[in-house]
């Protein structure tokens, strides 16, 4: 019996080792390919300057869509930031999604809202009733929609989409702020390929620790908590370089809900976001691919590394665990919903490359990692593991992952250098080590938990994470414009 277990454990150990070498190798290729692309794009001469995009009379107008549920800490700064973006023609639509705090009252006090009539696009699927629409007397570009909370972020976004009138729609969150030229950079991508471009995603970075004034990022700094610092490395690796590489391969299937710009016409055709999806951003992108390929239309869904959306990431492990369980469950639901696309040559690189990768490495990887650690511990308990060999193999696997993180930081250093303070770079480097030795294993547990809840089909609702906001509660309550430092 012991011999059989020894044999099985041996095989499993080999499988886990090969799996992780393969996973890290694929990711290393993605990171390096993304890095080369980012550095190339940074050095390329731009055929259209941002001033020209601004002055051009045919630059498409944009509706910026901001769902807000109990966002009293950040909503005023965030809306000011959105309204102050450098762009020739944009409107901001905030959806107060049944907030129980002073989100609406603060907006009313700051922007002097009055009821207004707007036409509603009936093709967009909105579950909960819309209670009223308001326009600001201070800045007519601001529209506020009040609605009953349906328990999902996507329903709030859909309510805004139903009201949006501009040809492009930018989806974001109330705890996010953009670089001032972010919309111009996106519009430039549309102008360079207007016939085919249906969606564009931008980079997400952690705002925690940075100085923000009236929705404007004054100075980018690394976060002050280790939980947030670890996410800086993750965001660089997966949300920047990984997505640049997938976009280059024309196989991008995730555009973050905090910064995605789409053609409104296309969203109307699709009926908006799936109101029941937990990972509504990824679900939308996969549905766009399906819709465009099924209808035989040429299209382009791109990821741009330059325009940056700074968003508040969870500062505590508890909040992070909630978020990662939700992401894992959401991914499982998306892959299940679109299972017919996986390994289906009709969907090209999406069906044959991107979706299988997300299934085998992003979704099931958590289980392999989690079970792998458990198997090693079991082996130790039964005395079946060669200790020195196990330690060496573990060191090799972890070192490989460390090299991957180090290359990510190197590429950031060669391209954007957002963190100019040497201390920040050092802290991010240390965080990348903590990520590999400890965080990654806990992360695998959270992801496995999310996957199990998807399999059990327990009831799911979107839980808003606790925010610290761009300012202290007292500052937000007064809705002042003082400079503050997040999570300091």
């Amino acid at each position: 019996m012991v011999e059989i277990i020894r044999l099985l454990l041996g095989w499993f150990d080999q499988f886990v080792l090969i799996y992780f070498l393969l996973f890290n190798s694929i990711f290393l290729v993605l990171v390096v390919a993304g890095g080369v692309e980012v550095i190339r794009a940074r050095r390329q001469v731009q055929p259209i300057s941002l001033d020209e995009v601004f002055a051009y009379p045919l630059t498409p107008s944009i509706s910026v869509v901001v769902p807000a549920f109990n966002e009293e800490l950040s909503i005023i700064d965030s809306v000011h930031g959105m309204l102050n973006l450098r762009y020739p023609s944009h409107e901001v639509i905030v959806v107060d999604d049944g907030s129980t705090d002073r989100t609406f009252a603060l907006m009313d006090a700051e922007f002097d809202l009055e009821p207004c009539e707007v036409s509603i696009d009936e093709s967009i699927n909105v579950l909960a009733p819309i209670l009223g629409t308001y326009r600001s007397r201070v800045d007519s570009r601001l529209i506020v929609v009040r609605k009953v909370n349906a328990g999902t972020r996507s329903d709030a976004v859909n309510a805004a989409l139903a009201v949006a009138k501009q040809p492009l729609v930018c989806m974001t969150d109330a705890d996010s702020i953009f670089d001032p030229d972010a919309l111009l950079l996106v519009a430039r991508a549309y102008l360079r390929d207007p016939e085919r471009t249906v969606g564009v995603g931008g980079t997400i970075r952690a705002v925690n620790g940075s100085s923000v004034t009236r929705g404007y990022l004054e100075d980018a700094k690394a976060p002050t908590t280790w939980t947030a610092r670890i996410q800086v490395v993750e965001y660089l690796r997966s949300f920047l370089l990984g997505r640049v590489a997938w976009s280059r391969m024309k196989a991008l299937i995730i555009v973050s809900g905090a910064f995605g710009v789409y053609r409104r016409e296309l969203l109307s055709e699709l009926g908006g976001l799936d109101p029941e999806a937990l990972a509504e951003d990824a679900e939308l992108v996969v549905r766009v691919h399906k819709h465009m390929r099924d209808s035989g239309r040429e299209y382009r869904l791109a990821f741009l590394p330059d325009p940056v959306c700074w968003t508040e990431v969870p500062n505590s492990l508890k909040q992070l665990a909630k978020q990662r369980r939700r992401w894992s469950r959401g991914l499982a639901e998306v892959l299940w919903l679109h299972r017919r696309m996986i390994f289906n040559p009709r969907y090209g690189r999406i069906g044959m490359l991107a979706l299988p990768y997300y299934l085998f490495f992003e979704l099931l990887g958590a289980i392999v990692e989690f079970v792998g650690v458990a198997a090693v511990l079991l082996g130790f308990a039964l005395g079946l593991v060669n200790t020195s060999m196990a330690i060496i193999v573990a060191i090799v696997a972890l070192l490989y992952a460390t090299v991957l993180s180090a290359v990510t930081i190197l590429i950031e250093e060669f391209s954007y250098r957002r963190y100019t303070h040497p201390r920040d770079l050092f802290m991010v480097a240390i965080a990348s080590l903590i990520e590999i030795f400890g965080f990654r294993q806990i992360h695998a547990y959270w992801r496995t938990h999310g996957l199990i809840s998807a399999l059990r089909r327990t009831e799911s609702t979107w839980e808003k994470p606790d925010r610290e906001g761009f300012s202290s509660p007292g500052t937000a309550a007064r809705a002042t414009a003082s400079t503050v430092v997040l999570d300091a």
Partner: protein
Amino acid sequence: MRGSDLLLALTLGVLIGTLAAVIGVTVFHHVWTRRRNQQEAELAEEIRPRLMEMLLEDEPDLSLFETEQGLRSRLIDDLAAALISKLRGADRQRLVLLLDRRGALDRARRRLSSRRPSVRARAVQLLGSTGAPGALPDLVSLLRDRNRTVREVATRSVGRLGDPSATCFLLALLATPERSVPEHLVRMALFRLGRPAIPNLIRELGHYSSDVRRCAADVLGHLGAAEAVEPLTKLALLDDDVAMEALAAIDRIDGPTSADALRKLNTETSSAELRAAVAAALERRGEFETPESEVAATPVERVLAVGNG
């Protein structure tokens, strides 16, 4: 030592070596870049006021800038090129002269035939931003470059030269089925040529390609070219492919001539779609009361226009 142990030890060595190299390069680059940026900032602080003084002097001594070498020399070129796009008139000409005397424009002309697309694109950009005399034929030839970025930068630069004779070359980019340059870039370049290009744009309204006619009509409308109202009216009446764009262009042009043209179109066109759009345009000008029965029969655009009004 067994083979597998050797392999593991080797792997370990390679990984540790790679990690050390990556960390080393990152630290070195960070320190080096900080120093270089600091050095450049200090030099720029020194050079910028000298450039500004040169612009203020009646008879500046340009030779003062000709003997500089290395980083200082490159910074002078960069700062002068960056200033050029912000200046007009005599100041701009003086900076162009400075770059010419320093040999920057000749270098750029030579680099137009470089094998590296990034070098060609930078050269095209400099020649376009300086409006270098005699650069048009070179830049026009690069409108058909094999590299997309070079083609696009050349399109923009041709517009920046401000020579109206470039109109036909720019519009010709839209005449081929395979679009080598995005249409918006061509329009931007045409806008940049501005009003001097109006006669050439009017001539292009007779081009065999409907895409060219459509673009020319649109640009004329945005330029507010009153002299184009008559040919645009003819186009709206006779050219079904471009009728709506011609009407939109007339609508954008202010003044009595365009109002007369709209009234003429309203009575002479046989197209129901065009007549509905004309009615909407006249209504926006407060000249037309649409009967209820007609509103119901018009296309979506018409209904929306009435609703917004």
